Structures are given as C-alpha cells and as structure tokens.
C-alpha cells in the first residue's frame, strides 16, 4: 500500500547525504505535500501545520547523516513531522488546561481586565471554522479529529491519510502492532460515532 521509494528517490537521499542541497530540495518538493496533510490533520491548524513541516524538513536536512538506510527516508521524515505535530497538540492542550484553570481563578478574583484576556493561541483542531479549509467535509473531519486523543489521531492519520502500513506506523510512533491497530480502530469508531451525531 505504501509507495516504495524509487531508485531516483534513493539517489536523491544519498546525494543529499553527500551535502548536495539541490538534491534535498527535490526531496522537499516530493514530500512537503504529504507532510503538510499529516501535520494539518494532527494539529488542525494551517499555520501550525506549516511551521511543523518547515521545522521537520530543516531538521531532516540537519540529521540526514543519521539516516542509515536511504530507502527509509519516507518513514523517517514522517516520524520527525509526526513527533513535532504531536508535541504541538500536547503543548496546546496543556496550555488550554492551565489557561482554563487560571481563568477560573482570575474570574473568581473578579479582575475584569485579566479575565477578559484574549488567548494568543492560534485556532486548534477543535475550532475548525478558523482552519480556513474551504471544504465542508474536510472542516468537519478536522473538527472530529480535534476531539480524539492525539496518540489515536496520529496513528489514524498515518494510516488513513498517508496510507502507511501498520509496520511503518509502529516504527514511526514506537508502539507494537497490536497497539497501533487498537488505536486506529478506536479512532475509527469515534469518528463514525461523531459523524452520526453530526448528521
């Protein structure tokens, strides 16, 4: 199911490892679209997804000498991207929790200047209307994904959006196949349930 790297792609990875920036730029062109889809579906925000992909690809260049098997580039770069996207989601969730707690305290202290503070956060997956996605179904899916645990969401996105094999997903998220299959199944169940509520 997962596309195998072409000999040309393998050559590009080797040349990039040899320091050829132009070869890496071709790899950027080949992979940025799929990485953006993964990042967007995990973080649910266009600007964050863009920053995640930029960070991932620049990091990939910097760490390219650590990649032993050039044929593994596809999964390896997705792993960098997925980890960065998951970190963003978890950080935002923590911040939302602490902001909510702070706001509750501040509201009870009756300080109107503080309690009316506007969060500087960008929109999140739970806020699909702000995602600027033009398609209604894509907006709806982004909204549903925003309510799913990030670990489940990530496995689901790698399977359903990027088309990775279970084995590849195991490597990317560092989990057993049983765990990965379980997470994807739970994510599907939740998506189906929410779709039904939404109808």
């Amino acid at each position, binding site marked *: 199911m997962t596309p195998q790297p072409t000999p040309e792609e393998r050559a590009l990875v080797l040349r990039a490892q040899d320091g050829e920036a132009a070869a890496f730029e071709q790899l950027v062109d080949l992979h940025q679209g799929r990485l953006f889809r993964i990042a967007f579906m995990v973080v649910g925000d266009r600007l*964050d997804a863009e*920053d*995640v992909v*930029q*960070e991932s690809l*620049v*990091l990939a*260049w*910097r760490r390219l000498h650590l990649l032993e098997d050039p044929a593994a580039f596809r999964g390896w770069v997705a792993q960098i991207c997925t980890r*960065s996207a998951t*970190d*963003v989601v978890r*950080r935002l969730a923590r*911040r939302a929790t602490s902001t909510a707690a*702070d706001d509750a305290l501040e509201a009870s202290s009756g300080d109107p200047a*503080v309690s009316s*503070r506007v969060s*500087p*956060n960008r929109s999140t997956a739970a806020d699909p209307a702000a995602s600027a996605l033009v398609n209604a179904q894509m907006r709806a899916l982004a909204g549903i994904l925003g309510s799913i645990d990030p670990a489940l969401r990530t496995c689901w996105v790698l399977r359903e959006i990027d088309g990775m094999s279970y084995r590849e997903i195991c490597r990317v998220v560092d989990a057993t196949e049983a765990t990965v299959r379980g997470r994807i199944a739970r994510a599907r169940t939740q998506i189906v349930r929410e779709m039904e509520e939404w109808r």
Partner: protein
Amino acid sequence: MSPTSPQSPLSSESVRTPRTGAAELIDIVTEVPGVSGLEPGIATTLRALDARLRRSDPTASRYGLVIDPGTGDVTVEIAVGGPLPVRSIVEEVQRAVQLAVGDPGTGRPQVLVRVQSLATP
C-alpha cells in the same frame, strides 16, 4: 502596568520579556562597523520556528537573531566584511547587544555570535 507588558501577550511570561526585542537588536547589530548584515542560518531558523510553535514571546525571535525566553541569552548570525579583524567585530556586536539588553558589568546576557560568512575586502 510594567513597561514590558505591551510587548508580551502572555501576562505569565511578561516578567521574562526583554525590554528590547529581536527587531531592535537586529538594528543595533547591523549598525556595528564591519557587520555586513544578518545572515540567518539553521540555528536561528529552527529556534524561531520552535518559538512560534511554542507561542513564545513573538518579539523575541527572528530569523537571524533569537532571544532565549528563559535566560535572555542572545544568538545572532551575521555576515562580516571589511578591514577590521573578525574577532573585534564580534566583540563589538556582543558589547552593543549587552549594552542594549543587559545589566552592565554582569556579563549577562550571554551573546553568542555565529559568523556565517566573510566578504573579502
């Protein structure tokens, strides 16, 4: 209201917000004789992206110059040129930044200068 507040949208982080932001420091750095300009490299690019994703103080990082939100330490990436020794140019950059944001005499914040390229005179 403290003078730092308008620069930080996060009240919880305003204590650590430097009075002088990255944009002002860039002007200060590029005015030092021998500095041909800011030349962003991977170090500050990655840190600027990370700062954005962490919702850190938006005035503290630009491609080419980053202020660490925790320590206030500054990393700047420059190109140099002209007849002055590279080391003297670097030292002047460090002094100018410390004068703008630091506490004179304490040696803080640390200013790491990364010289990216050297134009031949």
